[in-house]
Structures are given as C-alpha cells and as structure tokens.
C-alpha cells in the first residue's frame, strides 16, 4: 500500500486512520428490563457510530425483570472489543457475551414471507417452501404467507428464491441466539 503523502492536517483532530478487516459478531446482552434500557443500548451504537445488522429483544425472565438483547454487529476486532466493554459498563447491563468468540452457538431467525402469484408460480412457491420447511400460515386464492425459521443465511436464500415467484412483503424478527452446551471460559481482558 502506498504511504499517504505527509501533510499537516488542518483539522484539530489529525488524520483519519486506515481501516482494518471487518468482522461480524453475535452479542448476547442480559439487561434489567427497565424503561429506557433499549434506548440506552441503541443510543450507544448511534452515538459511537457502530453498525447494527440485526437486533432482537424481549423479556426472558419475568420474575427477575431480565431481558435478553441479541445484536449482530459488524466492525473491526478493536471496534467489537469496544462495543462489548462499552455495553458492559452500562448500569442496567448484567452480562455481555460474545457468542462468536465463546464457542459454538445456535442462531435462529423467523420470517413471514408473503408471495402473490398464480398458476405455475404458485405451485413452485409451495414446492420451494416445502424444501425450506416453511409453513403456510395464511392463504388466499392469489397469495400465501409463509413462516420460515432458520439462520439468517437460510432466510436470505428463501427470500431470494421467492423474489421471481411474486414476493410481496417480508417481515423478519432478527436473530435470537444461545451458546451450545458448555462454553469455553471467556478470556477476560486485564487478566
């Protein structure tokens, strides 16, 4: 890579750094379910310029008022490390786990896919839905709504196949994820 030409920056902040390789990580956050907690997490991403690919949130333990937020983020390894520590220092955040680095994990997403078509296309849509184990949850004479579950990649594939067959609308839940079986012990920074 050619070294950029040296020059004095006019800005009081100096030059922009060269970017590193971007990775995608699935992060699971356990938070106390109180008003504003989601805004706090989202605000961190907006305020510090991090990218969210997918976000899922719902209460998972009613008695303890705990919610799980699952976020898929992209960034350089340093940015991802920052995201985790920034999340971890928030007062209502109880636990932050990077599923991507703590061993194998299961991630699933649900989508509702509406397809409007007639004749052969309608039959083809049903056939493909069968291959993807998508269920028909609504049907009219000229449309279906399929319910399909799987990894984000599987849903992308399904949606892409439905496109020429009269894809009308898609609604996706975002990724929910959990670690499989026993996890690797997480390596804590500073230890």
């Amino acid at each position, binding site marked *: 890579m050619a070294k950029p030409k040296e020059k004095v*920056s006019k800005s009081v902040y*100096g*030059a922009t750094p060269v970017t590193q390789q971007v990775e995608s990580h699935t992060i699971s956050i356990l938070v106390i379910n109180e008003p*504003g907690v989601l805004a706090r997490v989202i605000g961190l991403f907006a305020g510090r310029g991090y990218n969210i690919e997918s976000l899922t949130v719902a209460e998972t333990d009613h008695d303890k008022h705990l919610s799980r937020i699952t976020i898929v983020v992209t960034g350089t390894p340093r940015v991802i490390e920052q995201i985790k520590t920034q999340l971890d*220092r928030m007062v209502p955040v109880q636990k932050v786990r990077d599923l991507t680095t703590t061993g194998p994990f299961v991630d699933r997403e649900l989508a509702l896919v509406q397809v409007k078509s007639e004749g052969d296309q309608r039959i083809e849509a049903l056939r493909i839905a069968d291959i993807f184990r998508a269920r028909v949850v609504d049907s009219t004479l000229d449309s279906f709504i399929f319910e399909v579950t799987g990894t984000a990649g599987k849903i992308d594939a399904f949606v892409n196949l439905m496109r020429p067959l009269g894809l009308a609308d898609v609604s996706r839940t975002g990724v929910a994820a959990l670690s499989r079986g026993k996890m690797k012990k997480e390596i804590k920074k500073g230890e």
Partner: protein
Amino acid sequence: MKKRKTLNMSTTEAKRAASKTTPAPAKKMTGAEMVIEALIEQGVEVIFGYPGGAVLPIYDELFKNKDRIKHVLVRHEQGASHAAEGYARSTGKVGCFLVTSGPGATNAVTGLTDALMDSIPVVCITGQVPTHLIGTDAFQEADTTGITRPCTKHNVLVKDVNELAGAIHEGFHVARSGRPGPVVIDIPKDIQFADGNYKAAKDSMKHAYKPRTMPDMDGIEAAIELMASAKKPVFYTGGGIINAGPQASKLLRELVRETGFPVTSTLMGLGAYPASGKEWLGMLGMHGTFEANWAMHDCDVMICIGARFDDRVTGRVDAFSPNSVKIHIDIDPSSINKNVPVDIGLIADAGEAMKAMLQIWRAKGCKSDSAALKKWWKQIDQWRGQNCLAYKNSDKIIKPQYALQRLAHFISKDPRDAYVSTEVGQHQMWAAQFLPFDQPNRWMTSGGLGTMGYGLPAAIGAQMAHKDALVIDVAGEASILMNIQEMSTAVQYRLPVKVFIMNNQWMGMVRQWQELLHGERYSESYTDSLPDFVKLAEAYGGIGLRAETPQELDDVIKEMMKTDKVTLVDVRIDQRENCFPMIPSGKAHNEMILSADADKFDKKLV
C-alpha cells in the same frame, strides 16, 4: 463476565437478612421530603440549584430544612452544574445540584457532559411535569432522560414514589463508584407531592452495580517484571489517580520514590505528583513540555495509570511512543485498547493497583536498573535543557507567562490553601504550564469537553467547600463572559473568589490556530466590544482591578490577594502571544514546535 453481580447479591442479601431481624418501621413521607432525607443520608451538605415550577415541592422542603442542607442559588443552571463539579473535584465527594424541568434540565446538559468526560461524580435532580402530562408537550416539558442519556453515566425517571428514595441512593452510589460520572434523577411533580415509604440506602441497590476495583495479581506481577527490567521507563498518570482519592496520590509518590522513574501527567492529573518533585517532567500532550513528550516518545516501558490516551495526549496515534511496552491501569474496561493498543491492560482502581504494585515490588526485592536509569535521566536532562517554556519577556507589555509566574509566586507566599480553576483556551494551557501543584484536588479545569465558562462556577463550588481557602479562577476575557452572571452568586454568598482574567481581546487559542493553520485569516476570533471588567465587577457588587503594565502587575496581584469579596482582575496581556510548545495535529510527540521555531513554521502548508 462480571463479578459484581454475584458479589453484590450476597452482600445485599446479607444486609436484607440483617434488617429483617431489626425491622425498622417504614417511614411514610412525601416525595419531596424523601428527596431531602435521601440527600442528607448521602452526606450532602451543599446543593446548588435554581427553582422553577416543577421543583417547587422540593424547594418547599429545602425552606423547612434550611439548617440541615445549604442551598446555593446560582444564576443559570449551567453554573449550578459546574459549581457542583468544582465542589466534587475539590472535596472528592459527590457534588449535587437541583434544577427544574424543561429549560432547567437542558441548561444543565453542558455541565453533565463535562462531568461525564472528566469523570466527575455529580448527581443532578431535575423536576419533571406531572406523570399524566408526560408526552403531551406540556409547559416546560422536555424528555430529560432522553436528552441526558448520552451525557450521563446513568439516569432515571422516577414514576413511583416508593422507588424515589432508592433511586436517589443508587444514583449516588453509581456516581461515585467505579469510574465516577454524572447521574440524573428526574422526578415528576406529582411524585414530589405523593406519599410513600422511605427506603434507607442499604435497602436500595436494584442494579447491584459493583465495578471491579481490585487488580489481577498476575497482571501486576507481569507489570512489575517489566518495570524492573526497564531501561527507559516513564509514568504517564491522569485524573484517575485524583479520583482514587488522596491516598492514591501518596501511593504514586511512594512508587516514584521506590523506582526513581520519571513521571508526567495529563491535564486532569496535575497535583497527583508534586510539581516540585525532581522526577516531575511537567504535563504532556499538545501543549505539554518538551521533556515529557520526548520521554513518552522514546521510552521503552510506559506505565499509564488512570489516563485514557486522549487524542490531545497521543498526537498522531500511529507514531505514538512507537518502541515502548505499554502497561495501562484503568478502572473502566472500555478505556483499555480504545485509542492505543496496550500490552498489559489492568482493570483496577488506581490506588488499589499501585498498592499491589508497591507490595510486589518490595516483596520481590525489585530494583530499578540504576545504570540504565542514570543514562535515561541524563537524556531527560538534555531535553529539559531545551527550556521549552521559555518566552521573551518585556518591560512594556505583560506577557501571559510572566503574569502567571507572578501569580504563582504570590500563591506560594500565601499561607492559605490554594485552589485554582480555569476556563478554556490559551490561558488554561499557560496555567497548566506555569502554576505548580503539589497536592491533588487543587486544580479544576474542563479537560475532556473543553467548556468555556467552566471556571467561575467551579471556583464558586470549590470556595463553598473551602471557605477559608484561596480560590482563583484563571480566565480568558472571552470565556469569563460565558458564565459571568455567577458573579452575583459569589457576591450573595460572600465568596471571595479571585478571577484572574488574561485579557488579550482574542479567543486566543482560536487565533493561534488561525495564525498557524488557516493562513492568518482571523475569522471572528477578535472581540471588538468588551465590557469594562472593573466597572462590571463593581456593578455586581464585587471588586475590580486592572493591570496594564508589568510594573503594575505585582501590586495588583497583592491587592487581589487581600480582597474579601469576589474580585475581577483585568490583566491586559500581549495580544500576539502564542502558547508553546505545541504539537500540531497529525504530528507525533517528537515533532513538537517550540516558541523559537514558531517563526519557521511553514504557514503556507495549508
């Protein structure tokens, strides 16, 4: 990940069990009464604030509790926020302020952001419109928790009077624990009127917030090993040591004495290591000393304690201290590896970490490499020989550096304990360079946010806490006008704050950048019309003084030291003076320019 949860569960449970055996009858009171009770339980003696519709019930209780809690009426809510910061910074306690809904809260935002950037523990209580009016665009309604979410460490809107006392206790706990910061507690007016049960502090920890403070001993041992073998070490210290309490400053002094390593500090950390110490290199960074920045650049082991590798400190990151092994001790895990990747990152309270370091250093019988260190000090002395803070003095016009040296002289002669605050700009950097601090908590400045208008209210906060001390705000004529209204506050509470205005009629730092980097196009940085500061001081009921020549300066400062009322001193300084040394942005530590090279600096580069 966190130990805080498990640890705290057991302690709170134990406490709950203990409280079960002696059931204290729950005290019934109104929300407004709870606020006062909770503040007193938290040890608040002084609260800064400004009344308004949505906090009237609390002001009613303040009226009834005049003898238990002292309220200081400011003239603008921003003033209250900085006064609370000054109080907190100079005492080590949590500062507290009270403002009304809507504009009261939005005016406090600058102070909250300032406290967040500089890790100052403050609790801000805001009034809010009644619960049933929230979201209706009611009179003086603002989404306070929404607005302050990114500029506080934590905030909460209290919607149930039974949770009010707990929210306040937890707010203080969060503000002072871990990396300190600002907390907002937003209380709707109907909650202030409502009756409920008061909860004592010990029953109130909903979040089990307990950040890690104890260092990992393996990490400390690795750090000690590096330190013992270091040939060119340097301590890079910051505001974290001040926040860790006076004990931490003592430990730093011990650690430096034990190792003989040179020590430099950020703007926020001044005073943790005495400026009179022989290992002291002066402040580092953009306007730091030549020796401090060169030592940072050339060192082989850097021990960073309670500092955060801010861009004003590092200069160009990829050329920052290229050959050193870096040890970083910080209480905030997100500070580690944020701006600069480090080799050993330790999450701990600065004091606890230094205690552990000293313990292991002594237990292992470690010795610094004295031959290498001697060579290193020789090199440092050579850099010191550059005399980077030198300036051309004049007998016709007051040089800002000379004014501060005279001020420092008279401060050192004064028997009173001295506290100094600053505004933001050239005068702030000159004050950091020329005023020596030998104790922590004596220096209050807006480092992270760079808030013009910080100094006067901060000085008021410090003087409220230290009635007999000498409190000086080193100001610029532009900055002081941003919160000049607080003169009135100082007069009302008979606070003899001294405001030492370095008046050059320019926004000096802006002018300096325009001169050096924007082709000498001085866009809007000159103030054509300024008040007569002497008359202004008198109009407020204070004292005004003026020095126009170097010959007058000493007498004016002497006079200022004697006043028993708030005093504005208009010091007319050289309009053309620039602040050096300086690392131009995008440059490394070893590329700093000194005042002697300033003329050679190629202004046509841009």
